[in-house]
């Protein structure tokens, strides 16, 4: 049985940048225990230790050629931002 304590939930919430109420932390703790108890079943599967292989579907990036004209999509994308200033997305000071 997997046990999750409240501190783990709090740590995960901080890492995930999600503010949670005390009640929700408690209910998430319970849910996560039940879910991890269920998915923990896979520990019983006979997986052999081997290095992961690339599958047939690979993430192949396109050639970095023929760039579009600078600024062609700026307005389209900036229009979606909640706060903007002079052609930039605006955020609060970080340091």
């Amino acid at each position, binding site marked *: 049985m997997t046990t*999750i304590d409240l501190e*783990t*939930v709090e740590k*995960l*919430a901080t*890492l*995930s*940048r*999600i*503010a*949670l109420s005390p009640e*929700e932390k408690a209910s*998430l703790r319970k*849910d*996560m225990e*039940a*879910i*991890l108890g*269920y*998915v*923990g*079943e*896979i*520990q*019983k*599967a*006979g*997986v*052999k230790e*081997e290095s*992961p292989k690339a599958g*047939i*579907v*690979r*993430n*192949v*990036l*396109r050639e970095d050629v023929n760039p579009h004209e600078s600024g062609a*999509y700026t307005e*389209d*994308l900036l*229009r*979606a*931002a*909640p*706060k903007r200033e002079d052609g930039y*997305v605006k*955020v*609060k*000071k*970080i340091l």
Partner: protein
Amino acid sequence: MAIDLKNLTIKKAHDHLIKGDFTAVELAGAYLKNIEEKNKDLNAYLEVFDDVAEQAKAADLLFKEKKAGLLTGIPLAIKDNILIKGRKVSAASKILEGYVASYDATTIEKLKKEGVVFLGRTNMDEFAMGGSTENSAFGVTKNPHDSSRVAGGSSGGSAAAVAMDGALAALGSDTGGSVREPASFCGVVGFKPTYGAISRSGLMAMGSSLDQIGPITKTVSDAEIIFKAIAGKDPKDSTSLDTTIYRSENGQEKKRIIGVPRAFTESEGIDKRVLANFQASIERLKKLGYEIKDIELPNIGYSLACYYIIMPAEASTNLSRFDGVKFGLHKDGKNLLEDYLLTRGEGFGKEVRRRILLGAYVLSSGYYDAYYNKANGVRELIRGDFTKAFETVDAILTPTAPTPAFKIGEKTNDPVAMYLADIFTVTANIVGVPALAVPSGTSMVEGKSLPLGIQFMASHGREDILFELGKAFCGEEV
């Protein structure tokens, strides 16, 4: 002429439009009227577009100019996680409040070229996380066959829209069964193509190694028409495939063999009515001349557990982009960190928060090997089981869902019970194979006739086998 929406298919609608029996404007109008009547109760649509008549007029012009194709003027509903430039799109989440798509999804671009008519965007579980559409921030979608029950999910709005004759067909997305399970609950056809067959560009990402867009339709032929119109390699999605990549028909026409993983389909928790219907469906296939063969898939019992590790891990990563800075909702705090915490805390619904935390857990150092890495290993084992099975059978058959549509609220407080609704559907996403869910009859439950469904899976790229079997089973012209 009066338009018989109930029996209309894409092909029939096209023939009528060609003959001039009705116009695209009249056809769209007939659907709008139905939506007007039924959507208040069922909540299939989050928004009905205000320019439907103009889109239909443009389609009529294509008919006049003899430039119309099979999909021209066909009214479609689109799941609210597929981008249409200039229109609102929210993934049924508050965190995308006010967001307007800045580009067209590749599927939308292709459908626009065909001249389809987009009727509106349909309700779903928030960010496609759920099996009942109860996780929408905008209320549940009810099942057209019994409004006390769920329509399924996460593409519940798309399935209900087609089932209530509120659209001729719809697009959904399927990460673990989100096209097939609601299709089964609503008595329509749901199709998840081979991973990579349809571009994911412009589909909001949940589990990127699992997600596929798929059609929800009334007939298998309609699903095939839409699939062919939107499939193909796309430079904007590097995981998309040239659809010929896997195809290997090395023999002439042969009698198809259908495999049934009995140990799995008869496992605990499968509803008796579902099992009885599944057995009857097997008999129907035998009568149609197909050979039924019992098969073993030794690791399939792990597929749901494997899925509920890989999917939250990928979703947790994908959803980090919703930060209150680039688009959608912004909640103001004292500093940037607080902006993030508040925006994401208030913007994401409960199930989304649950899966983000779960994903962060299985990816965190100390648990990564025990969960995420292990799940990837199990994924390989399940893939191996399927490869082996497809050496002796052409298709694998299971029920689509373990129960008929359940009651609204029945499973909302028990996430594990809710996840079990995906038991038969997740494997196709884990393995990446195509899967087709078709209606297989009904069962009387508390005085209401509820649809049941079965699901065919085929090897990678063998959509053709699924269409062939599906049409034969449903009695459609091949």
